[in-house]
């Protein structure tokens, strides 16, 4: 009986498998964790378009840095989408992504966001600017910039915010050190940071607008303030040079920058990279917004601030034990 059913399965399955192989090209998307819900809507939407109708996807989500290292160590990927550009740059160095990956209209970016202050109900400590964070007794929660690549956006937002307030680079570094004295918890990731804050720790949690909006959509009691001067977060995407389905992968990336796709991203809390898709959604403009270029660009920033031995942040962390 068992043998008969096994044969039966083989007979039935084989044509199906063969047909499946002929019809489907499978693209492997390796991404950081926060846009998971967005891609969950984007992929089916793409499959309804002419370019996407014969494509299926395998998806892998995790911490941005870890996903990047996994691809560097051989994880199959046609498309990589990370939290910050250095995670793609490290793949360029390993020749897994083409050097010119960012040479397009969007500079290789697919979504945007800003660093915000998640605050307690009604913002009792009246925290609106970066300087406000230095008020006596203010307790800050931010993910650790050495365990969470994404948390580096927070540090650069604070640093740039100080520059925008008229400080010199040296004074801005001093500001960072002072601000860091108010940090009462450094969770390992952004999501853990939100858990820590919601559990009652701290007066302010440095977060990304998309994460705060996502938490609100999930019904969590999250209020946030966008400081006047804050950093424009830009999340990169690239097709790998090792991809065996480059044209299909490029078609997907192209789709992600179309209006319908950017609208889906916007509905999931991300600021879009194209205009005209945010009707009905609230993404307040900030005149003093700056990009990573304003604080020196990632290459310089990574070395100056986040070198685990000599970086400014490494020293600030070390002096916190003083």
């Amino acid at each position: 009986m068992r043998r008969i059913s096994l044969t039966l399965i083989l007979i039935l399955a084989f044509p199906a498998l063969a047909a499946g192989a002929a019809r489907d090209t499978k693209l492997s998307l390796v991404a950081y964790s926060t846009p998971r819900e967005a891609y969950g809507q984007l992929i089916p939407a793409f499959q309804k378009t002419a370019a996407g109708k014969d494509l299926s996807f395998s998806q892998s989500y995790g911490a941005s840095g870890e996903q990047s290292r996994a691809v560097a160590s051989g994880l199959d990927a046609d498309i990589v989408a990370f939290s910050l550009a250095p995670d793609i740059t490290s793949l360029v160095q390993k020749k897994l992504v083409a050097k010119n990956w960012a040479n397009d209209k969007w500079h290789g970016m697919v979504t945007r966001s800003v660093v915000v202050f998640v605050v307690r109900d009604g913002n009792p400590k009246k925290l609106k600017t970066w300087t406000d964070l230095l008020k006596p007794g203010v307790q800050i929660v931010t993910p650790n910039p050495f365990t969470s690549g994404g948390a580096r956006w927070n540090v650069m937002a604070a640093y740039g915010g100080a520059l925008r307030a008229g400080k010199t680079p040296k004074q801005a570094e001093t500001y960072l050190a002072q601000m860091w004295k108010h940090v009462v918890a450094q969770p390992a990731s952004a999501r853990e940071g939100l858990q820590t804050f919601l559990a009652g720790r701290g007066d302010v949690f440095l977060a990304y607008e998309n994460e705060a909006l996502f938490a609100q959509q999930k019904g969590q009691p999250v209020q946030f303030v966008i400081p006047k001067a804050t950093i424009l977060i830009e999340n990169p995407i690239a097709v790998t040079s090792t991809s065996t389905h480059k044209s299909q992968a490029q078609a997907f990336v192209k789709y992600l920058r179309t209006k319908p796709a950017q609208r889906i991203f916007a509905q999931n809390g991300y600021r879009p990279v194209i205009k005209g898709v945010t009707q009905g959604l609230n993404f307040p403009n900030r005149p003093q917004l700056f990009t990573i270029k304003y604080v020196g660009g990632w290459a310089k920033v990574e070395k100056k601030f986040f070198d685990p031995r000599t970086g400014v942040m490494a020293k600030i962390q070390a002096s916190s034990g003083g």
Partner: protein
Amino acid sequence: MAASAEALPAPKARRSAAPGLAIGLSTLYLSLIVLLPLAALAWRAHGWDAITSPQAVSALKLTVVASLVVALINAVAGTAIAWTLVRDRFFGQGFVNALVDLPFALPTIVAGLTLLALYGPKSPAGINVAFTRWAILLALLFVTLPFVVRTVQPVLLELDTEMEDAAASLGASRAATFRRVILPNIFPAILSGVALAFARAIGEFGAVVLISGNLPFKTEVVSVYVFGRIESGDSGGAAAASVVILVLSFGVLLAIGGVRRWATRHDR
């Protein structure tokens, strides 16, 4: 089965028919699963400043001390729980028995979340230890609970109560019976459990990372420190730090093994 039972009286005959093969297979397996990865880790280690920096030393001290304290608390609490489970009969015993293993089944990050909700700033019990060193102890106690219980339990089950009756009939107090009759019998098992609990605590990440707050010099454990090194692209330093943790743990495990041998010296 019958054949091996007959062969039992002669200890030599208990050895397997092909000892070379058994040793070879065990060695191969251990090499693939344990030794090779550890060797690769040591091979990749460079940049010893990653472990000599004040931040690293502080994290290491905190972790080792916390793990030792946790192992010792487990020695007492674990033995007490095992005792209750073996010697007492009460309603819901099977339930409690199953409960002991739960910390193994729960993803450690979930354990961290749960502990944070229960013993954090919004604690319904009014106990807030989150983001302090007490929180690290709590998280480690949670994940290491089963070890001592599960090593001591079978030994207690096997223990002949007639020995205790004999001791009592000779006038020994309950405390003396425990100290001089029961404890020597279960001591090796306690030590095994303590060693396991210590080793687990040293490397624990998930349960601790959320509830500790990861403040360098205050509540940052060494696994979180290593994670930070990896995330910062310094995998050599991370490997170096890991090697130091391993050597330290190995030393402690060897020492516990030594005590165990000493304690059982009369049995051999």
